[in-house]
């Protein structure tokens, strides 16, 4: 039980990186990058977890023991920014496909002048 969150974060990281490296399609690559990113969410939220504590929202309960709000704030903004970054990368993929007619990284060569 103690090592499951770290194992999960590490697994997501490795699987995502492997996907990025072995990718044959840029759209798939963007998805793999999102997997790598989600490993950081798992890691951060696991660090902020506290055994038996509730959420850091004290609307019905008096302030006191709760899980860490700092890491939750980090993850929250990261998710939204990550979504726009994915959109930016997908826009790049779209333009690559328009110009080169393929999304396979192996078929593409560096731009020549």
């Amino acid at each position, binding site marked *: 039980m103690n090592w499951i969150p770290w194992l999960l974060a590490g697994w997501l990281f490795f699987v995502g990186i492997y996907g990025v490296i072995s990718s044959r399609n840029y759209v798939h690559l963007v998805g793999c990058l999102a997997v790598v990113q989600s490993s950081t969410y798992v890691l951060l939220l696991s660090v902020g977890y506290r055994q038996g504590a509730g959420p*850091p*929202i004290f609307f019905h309960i008096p302030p006191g*023991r709760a899980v860490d*709000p*700092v890491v939750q704030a980090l993850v929250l903004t990261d998710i*939204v920014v990550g979504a726009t970054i994915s*959109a930016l990368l997908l826009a790049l993929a779209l333009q690559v496909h328009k110009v080169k007619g393929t999304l396979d990284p*192996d078929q593409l060569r560096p731009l020549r002048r």
Partner: protein
Amino acid sequence: MRRYRRLALFAIAMLGILPCMIGLFAHMPRFGEHPLPYGDAINLNGVRQRHVTNMVTAVNFDYRGVDTLGEEIMLIAATVGAVMLLRGSRGEELSARPGRAPGRPIAWRSTGQVLIARLMAPLILLFGLNIIIHPQLTPGGGFQGGVIVASAALLIWLGDGYRPWRRLMRSRPIEVAEAIGAAIYALCGFAPMVVGAAFLQNVLPLGKTGALISGGLILLINAGVGIAVACGFALLFIEFLQETRAEEEPDPEEREA
């Protein structure tokens, strides 16, 4: 060949990283028993100091508001980049014909789909606005609510099709609104400096804890973030869906050049 070389490099790199990772995780404190001094300090004092009940909001828009301003600028930079990449020949005009992949049948919208989209769009819009205006009390805020609001608008596209949706979603006003949303945040940062306080210091009256209008500057910043995020995602949706239109015929002169 290049593929195998890449995989071999990956294997070597992972052989290097894996022991470090295992060593690091072995020295982590027990799961659920991390010492969390900053989180504990905020959990203990946040309600008293800022009159908000959601500590995540207090961190995001007050204690670490400068970081969130950076995040928001990142969001806008990514949106602007995507919009600039996609703006071009396709779908700028409302009259643009839908693009067709050869040999693929056109799927017609069913009445049920239109009905459900029309019923759900206003409900989801309301839900998104509800999330945007309640961050000081319960989970929510401009980031989450903004995405929900933009998705509600997207339901019009799903139900009624591209043209009614585009008639509602004009690029120009949405661009201006996004800039205004970001400007609200920046102004909320500089305005306290006029009265001699620090950047982003919460100088407005904090209100009563648990009331809708509480938390002072947090509400205002949050509204700015909500506008910026909703408009940013709406712009992304517009630009991506413009790509589904058929390419316009290039000018003969341009073709010769």
